[in-house]
């Protein structure tokens, strides 16, 4: 895969993610950021695939990058991470694999159905793992930062719940 093809893939995934964000009624600046994440995720996946790496690893890396950046943007801009994460991973979601599998089942081509279904399952698990690891890392970091009150900050008079406090 040449650099031009990679650039084209980035451009198409940018457009696709942006349109997806519009369909979900995102605000204008969120559309741009979500689309950038979508393009980044897909380009990372395409680069892994072109480099001869395992396809599942590419899905994992793309989803991990998109999820990590959307958590970062969420903290930076005080938005829910979902706003950036949904357009960010939509190009990677293995809709096509599931679709091909079912069509192969209907046509009675079972080897094709199995291979398409296995590919889709691997991709879904890899994406889920990428999001899960990025999100839980982000939660640990934000929890560690939040526990330290800033200088001179008034501590709220209502109780703050931490899971460790339960049962004491």
């Amino acid at each position, binding site marked *: 895969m040449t650099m031009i093809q990679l650039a084209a893939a980035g451009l198409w995934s940018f457009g696709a993610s942006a349109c997806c964000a519009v369909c979900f*009624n995102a605000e204008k600046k969120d559309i741009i950021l979500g689309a950038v994440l979508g393009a980044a995720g897909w380009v990372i996946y395409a680069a892994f695939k072109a480099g001869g790496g395992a396809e599942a690893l590419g899905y994992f890396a793309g989803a991990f990058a998109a999820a990590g950046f959307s958590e970062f943007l969420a903290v930076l801009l005080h938005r829910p991470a979902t706003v950036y994460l949904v357009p960010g991973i939509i*190009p990677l979601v293995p809709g096509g694999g599931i679709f091909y*599998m079912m069509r192969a089942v209907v046509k009675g081509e079972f080897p094709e159905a199995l291979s398409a279904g296995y590919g889709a399952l691997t991709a879904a698990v890899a994406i889920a793992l990428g999001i899960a690891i990025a999100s839980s890392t982000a939660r640990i970091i934000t929890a560690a930062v939040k526990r330290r009150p800033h200088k001179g900050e008034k501590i709220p008079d209502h109780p703050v719940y931490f899971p460790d406090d339960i049962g004491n």
Partner: protein
Amino acid sequence: MNRINYDDIQQITVDAGALVLENGGETYRSEDTVVHTALSLGAEEPSSFVTPTVVMVSFRDNDGAHHSCFRRIYRRGINLRKLVMINNLSRSLERRGRISDTRMIEHRIARINNTPDYPGPFIVAAAALNSFFFTLLFGGSFSDALCAFVIGAVLRLILRFLDKSILNSFFISLLSGSIISVLADCIGLTALPVHTSVVMIGVLMQVVPGLALVNSIRDIIAGDFMAGSARLMDVLMTALGLSVGSAAGVLLTGAIQGLL
């Protein structure tokens, strides 16, 4: 001193939680919003339990009496703009500590609820362009992408029309799958140089359950296994509906070719 009206607190907290859930928020975000809202209105020990179909809230008043309230959620859409607005409301309540003016929060929730969407033609155009770009992304030619553009626009128009009726989500995904496959296979029967399978997955991407997948994973990470697995079931049912619906195209083209 003005007395706190506990019925108002129940109403407002349940409204806020339902707003998060109905616009595509995660379950734990809905629970957080309910608890923050209740705390800032002066409820004691608020706790909430949210699943994809219900929002429950329970708290104590100053006299030690318990109050609880729940609301059944029937329809869940995706509206990232409203999600951002309700998140801002929750954050500002958390920052401000205790407030007694319930009218202010009621007003803000009503304003979020009435925020207009993008205009319909704009969304249909975006959906059509979405299919266009995805077809190019999956290696289709420009003529494939143009076919996907048309089918994507038709699909979104039909879905917007059906949105007002009371069909369940499984039937809607079944229908979307069959619309996509029948239209694409009909184009495939003509002499046009079109790769039908690429067109199909290009159009399909606008109905793929991406948000439900993301939310189910994020709920499971947050430790909310029940809501997470319920949403995962939602993803699987949508995927099943789309793929079973796609069989319609295969059957139709088979029948037509059998007749010829």
